[in-house]
């Protein structure tokens, strides 16, 4: 779960970079950046959740 969380954070960051490069208009670019950031927050939540589990319960 922790690894998935970190991969989601990286994926969100790549979405942000892609938004900068691929979208020229201000509104779609801002929405895409916000979406990328939301993916990062989801990844962060997963990592926090993985750290809540006691060590013996980790995969």
């Amino acid at each position, binding site marked *: 779960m922790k690894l998935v969380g970190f991969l989601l954070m990286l994926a969100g960051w790549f979405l942000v970079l892609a938004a*900068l490069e691929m979208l020229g208009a201000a509104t779609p670019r801002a929405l895409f950046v916000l979406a990328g*950031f939301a993916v990062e927050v989801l990844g962060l939540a997963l990592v926090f959740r993985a750290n809540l589990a006691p060590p013996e319960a980790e995969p």
Partner: protein
Amino acid sequence: MGQPSPWVSEITTALCLVSILLVPLAVVGLAVLTNGLGKSRSAAHAMLASMCVIAVAALVYIAVGFSWEGFAGCAAHVITVGGKPWDWMARQPFFLRGLELNGSPALLSVVLQMFAVGITAMIPLNAAADRWRLGPICASTAVLAGWTYPLFAHWAWGGGWLSQLGTIYGLGSGFLDTGGASTIHVVGGLTALSMVWILGPREGKYSPEGMPVGIPGHNLVNVVFGCLLAWAGWLGLNSAGAMLFGGAPPSGLVLVEINTTLCAAASALVAVVVTRLRFGRPDASIAGNGWVGGLVASSAATAMLRPAAAILIGLIAGVLVALSVEWLELWLRVDDPGGAVSAHAVAGLWGLFAAGVFAGMGSRAAPGQWLAQLVGIATLVGFVLPLTYGLNWVLNRILPYRVESDGERQGMDLHELGAGAYPEFMIHSDDFIQR
């Protein structure tokens, strides 16, 4: 406007240098704060670790770190995507070779960051107190000062892609961070969070049911003294940063000093009020973290804020720090004895976003500034956090970070240094009993 006269330039250089020379006070302040918030049986270890961190950070940064960071306009690794240049990393020789050793802005920036990287490295130490061994502390600091810090600092301060978001993509003036809210504090705060995750909570911090047990800092006088010492350092840090990375003239430093102090004051007072409302009495350690959080939040754009905006940023930073300390400890099981994640990462991220909203007000309005700030924040959370966690996770496999269970019970002073910080006092009679 013509070129500044040599006299003005020398005055600017001297003023910048004086500001930079205040920055070690921030490092010392954080060291004293770390000492106060830790246990008495780890107090000497905390101070020695702080000294080692400052030493390793300065040596590694000068030896290799600055080579990756560079300065605006220096040789760099640039990738061209869609016809647009993405400046990823500087390409400078090691040991400052190729840099003229005079009073140039590039060299002043080196001096500032030689101290600043010490602040960054002190932040994880604050969070991982009472359980992190000295050898791994030095190794982790070397990685932070030699790679993680310079990489992000290049993007934000060294002419990298974040600083060019304005010119390339039309996002305001590019990513704005004149005093190091991102490069110094959020990078340090996210590394602190990684360290807490890797090390796990201190023994006895959580009951089997998962409820946290209060382990108070051993010296609250040191905590508050450290915060006040850090204030003097921050005035220098924000002033020098505003001149070197924000292009502020010497006359602009008056506003820097006002805003830095207002932001810290508002943040500390609101932390006092929040803890009074939550616990019935003000909490000195959280109020101290509120003060530091206000200083951190002020760092993003202190030269470009109106005083009222600085107060508002401080008020919100104080609420965020006070609530996030409790939230992280109670709900997310983050055992951060120094409150470093809240005071540096949470307050720093807020300060960066607020800079995009408030620094663009009035005549300085720059469309898209908030989006540039959000891209910077997304880079910190989406790239720097996985990077710093991954590097420390690997290092922990090679050189185990956490002290043995017996050592933790005995205290880091006796276990690692062979002598306690306060040999004439026996404060915890049960500390050395094998359980």
